[in-house]
C-alpha cells in the first residue's frame, strides 16, 4: 500500500507543470536552494559564536529566549503558504482503501514537507556546535529532539487551524503585541517561555512533553480529518457567501470604469491578488531600512531614491507586474468581447496610478524622518506614475503565465518572473532613476537630482498616448501566443 502511495507522490512531483521548466532555470533554482542550505548551515554553525562574541549571554539560553518568536513566525509562514494535504484526496476516496490509510498518507505527506525538515539545516549544525563546545550531550540531544517535536506540533496545528482566519489572526495579533511590549520593556513574554526551552536541556526528561504534544496533535488532526472526509464536509472547497457590491460611482469613467469595477472585485475576492495587495502595503515600510542605519549600504544618498520607488510602487511591483495574467482564467472571454484594448490597458494603468497615489499619501509618516525622506518617496511616486507604470504594462505583454487566483502557492517566486525580456524591462524601473539622481547629485546637488528624476516622470506622462499606442500594438501582436499560454493550466 505504502508503495503505491509513494509512487503516486513521486509521479505527482516529477510530472508537475512547475517541474517542467527549462534546464537553465532548473540549474538556477538548484543554486538558489543550495545557497539557502549553505546560508542556513553557516547560520547554524555561526550563530553560536556570534552570540558568544556579542556577549549577551549563554548562546543556548539566548536562542531559547527568542525561539518562541521563531515558532510564531513559522506558524505564520505555514499558514500563508503551506499547502493542505486535502487537495489530492478526492480520487482516493473511490478506491478500495481504508479511510485511516488515506488520512495517514495525507498527514504523512505534510511531515515530509520542506517546512519541517528545512529547519534541520539550522538546528543540526547548531546542536553539533553545542556538543563540540562541551555542553552536556544528553541535554543537547533532548533539546534537539524537543525542538523538532515542537516544529512538528506547529505542522499539525497548522493542519488543524487551516482556513480558520478567526482563530489565526487574533493569535498572531497577540504575539505581535507581546513582541512590541517586550521591545519597549513593558512586559517580557520570553521570561515565561524561556524556562521551558532551557528545561529541555537542563532536565532531559522534559523532552517527553513536546513529544506527547506532537503525538496528541497528530491524532487530533487524524481524527479531525477522518471525521470530515466527506465531499460536503472537510473536502469541500471553501465557499464564501457572495456579496454584491455597488461600485456604480465608477460608471462615469465609461468602459475604463467597467474594468476598474471588475479589478476591485478581483482584488477583494481572490486570495492571490489579495496577497499582492497586502504585500504592497508592507512595501510602505521598506523605506524604514533606508537612512536609518539598519542596513549599511542603504545609507548612501542614491539608495534613497531606490527606497522611494519601492515605497510608493509596492502595488505596481506586486500587482502591476502581472497584468494581464490576472485575467488569464477568462482571457478568451475578454478577447472575444466587445473590448478595445486601449480601454483595457488604460483601466489597469489607472488602477496602478490610484494605488501609487494612495501609497504616497499613506507614506507621509516618512515626514517624521525629515523632509528629504518624504521627498524621495514623492519623486519616486512621480517616476512610478510617469515611467514605471508604462514599463510594467509593457512587460506584462511578455509574461504569459496563467495565474490561479484562488491559490497562493506560487505567489512567491514564479518561474516566468525570470524571463529575459522582463528582466531587461525591470532594469530601467530601478537602475535608471538611480542613475539620473546620481547624475544630478554628483554634478550639482541632491535637489537637482530629485528634480531630474521627477522631470523624467513628467516627461513619461507627456508621452502617455504614444507609449500606449505602442503597448497596444504589442499586446495585439502577442494575443494568440498569450491565449495559448493561458490555456495551459499552471
Amino acid at each position, binding site marked *: 500500500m505504502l508503495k503505491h502511495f509513494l509512487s503516486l507522490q513521486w509521479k505527482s512531483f516529477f510530472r508537475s507543470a512547475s517541474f517542467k521548466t527549462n534546464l537553465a532555470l532548473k540549474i538556477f533554482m538548484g543554486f538558489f536552494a543550495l545557497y539557502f542550505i549553505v546560508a542556513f548551515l553557516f547560520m547554524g554553525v555561526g550563530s553560536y559564536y556570534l552570540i558568544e562574541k556579542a556577549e549577551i549571554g549563554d548562546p543556548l539560553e539566548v536562542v531559547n529566549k527568542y525561539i518562541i518568536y521563531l515558532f510564531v513566525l513559522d506558524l505564520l509562514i505555514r499558514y500563508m503558504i503551506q499547502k493542505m494535504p486535502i487537495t489530492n484526496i478526492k480520487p482516493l476516496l473511490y478506491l478500495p482503501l481504508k479511510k485511516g490509510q488515506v488520512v495517514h498518507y495525507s498527514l504523512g505527506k505534510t511531515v515530509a514537507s520542506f517546512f519541517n525538515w528545512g529547519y534541520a539545516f539550522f538546528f543540526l549544525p547548531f546542536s553539533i556546535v553545542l556538543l563540540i563546545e562541551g555542553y552536556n550531550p544528553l541535554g543537547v540531544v533532548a533539546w534537539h529532539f524537543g525542538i523538532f517535536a515542537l516544529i512538528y506540533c506547529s505542522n499539525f496545528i497548522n493542519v488543524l487551524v487551516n482556513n480558520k482566519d478567526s482563530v489565526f489572526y487574533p493569535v498572531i495579533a497577540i504575539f505581535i503585541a507581546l513582541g512590541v511590549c517586550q521591545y519597549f520593556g513593558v512586559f517580557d513574554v520570553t521570561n515565561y517561555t524561556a524556562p521551558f526551552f532551557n528545561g529541555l536541556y537542563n532536565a532531559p526528561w522534559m523532552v517527553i512533553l513536546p513529544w506527547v504534544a506532537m503525538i496528541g496533535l497528530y491524532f487530533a488532526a487524524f481524527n479531525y480529518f477522518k471525521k470530515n472526509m466527506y465531499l460536503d464536509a472537510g473536502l469541500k472547497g471553501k465557499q464564501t*457567501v457572495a456579496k454584491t457590491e455597488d461600485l456604480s460611482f465608477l460608471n462615469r469613467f465609461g468602459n475604463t470604469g467597467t474594468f476598474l469595477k471588475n479589478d476591485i472585485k478581483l482584488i477583494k475576492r481572490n486570495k492571490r491578488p489579495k496577497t499582492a495587495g497586502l504585500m504592497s502595503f508592507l512595501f510602505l515600510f521598506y523605506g524604514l531600512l533606508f537612512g536609518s542605519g539598519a542596513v549599511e549600504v542603504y545609507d548612501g544618498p542614491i539608495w534613497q531614491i531606490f527606497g522611494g520607488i519601492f515605497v510608493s510602487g509596492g502595488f505596481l511591483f506586486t500587482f502591476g507586474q502581472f497584468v494581464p495574467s490576472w485575467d488569464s482564467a477568462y482571457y478568451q472571454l475578454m478577447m472575444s468581447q466587445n473590448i478595445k484594448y486601449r480601454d483595457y490597458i488604460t483601466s489597469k494603468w489607472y488602477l496602478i496610478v490610484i494605488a501609487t497615489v494612495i501609497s504616497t499619501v499613506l507614506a507621509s509618516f516618512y515626514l517624521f524622518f525629515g523632509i528629504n525622506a518624504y521627498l524621495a518617496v514623492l519623486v519616486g511616486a512621480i517616476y512610478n506614475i510617469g515611467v514605471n507604470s508604462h514599463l510594467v504594462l509593457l512587460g506584462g505583454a511578455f509574461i504569459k503565465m496563467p495565474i490561479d487566483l484562488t491559490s497562493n502557492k506560487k505567489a512567491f517566486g514564479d518561474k516566468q518572473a525570470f524571463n529575459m525580456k522582463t528582466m531587461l524591462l525591470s532594469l530601467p524601473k530601478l537602475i535608471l532613476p538611480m542613475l539620473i539622481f546620481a547624475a544630478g547629485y554628483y554634478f550639482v546637488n541632491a535637489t537637482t537630482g530629485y528634480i531630474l528624476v521627477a522631470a523624467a516622470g513628467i516627461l513619461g506622462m507627456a508621452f502617455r498616448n504614444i507609449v500606449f499606442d505602442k503597448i497596444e500594438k504589442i499586446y495585439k501582436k502577442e494575443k494568440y501566443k498569450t491565449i495559448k499560454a493561458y490555456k495551459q493550466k499552471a
Partner: protein
Amino acid sequence: MIKAQNLTKTYGTATVLNIENLEIPKGQCFGLVGNNGAGKTTFFSLLLDLIQPTTGHIINNDVQVDSSEAWKPFTSAFIDESFLIGYLTPEEYFYFIGELRGQNKADVDALVHSFEDFFHGEILNQKKYLRDLSKGNQKKAGIVASFIGKPEVVILDEPFANLDPTTQIRLKGIIKNLAANQNTTVLVSSHDLSHVTEVCERIVVLDKGELVKDIKTSAATLKELEIFFSGAEAPDAAVAVFEDEE
C-alpha cells in the same frame, strides 16, 4: 453572413481543419457535429479570432475576422468556462457583459428576467460566485450572457452538455426562437445528434478537419447521421487528436 474560404489550420504537419468553402446565411440555425478532434472547437476559435488560420480567412458580415475587430460588437459566444469570470456573481457577470455591449442595467435586467424559466431558480439571487456554481448552472449563466446586447451571431460550443433534461428542452426552444424570430445566426456544436437535428435547419459534419456532409435538416437526417457515426461510412472516424473538447 459568415463565409469561410480556403480555411486551414495546421499544427506541425497535422492539419486539424481544412474547409474549402462554407457559407452560413443570416438567420440560419447552423449545427456542427463531429467526433472529438473533428475540428469543431478549432472552427469556433477561428471565428472568434482566438487562434490564427494557417491559410484562408473567415468573413463575418463583411468583416475579415483575423484583420479587423469590427465583428466583435455583433458577435457573441460561449465556448467553455474560460468565458466566465469566476469571482463574480451571475448578476454582476451579466452587468459586466452588458456594459461592454452598451446595455444599461435595465436592459440587462429585462433580458435576464425573460430567462427566469431557463434558470429554474438556481442562478439569480443565490449569493454565490460563479466559481461555486455547479457545471450545469455555470453553463446556463454563460449561455444567457451570450444573448446580451442583441448579437447578430451567437456561437455556442456544446451547449447541451452538462444540462439537465428540463433545461435542455428549454434551451432548444430558445435557440429555435432566436433564429426564427430575431433573425440571429446561431452556430451550435453538439455530440447529441437528436438535439442538433431537432434545433438546426442545417447540419454540417466535420471529420478530421474535413467537411464531409452538409445536410438540410429533414425527417431522414437523424437516421443518416446515425448511420454515418456508427462507422458504416467512415471506418476510423473516432481518432481523437489535438483537441480537448471537455
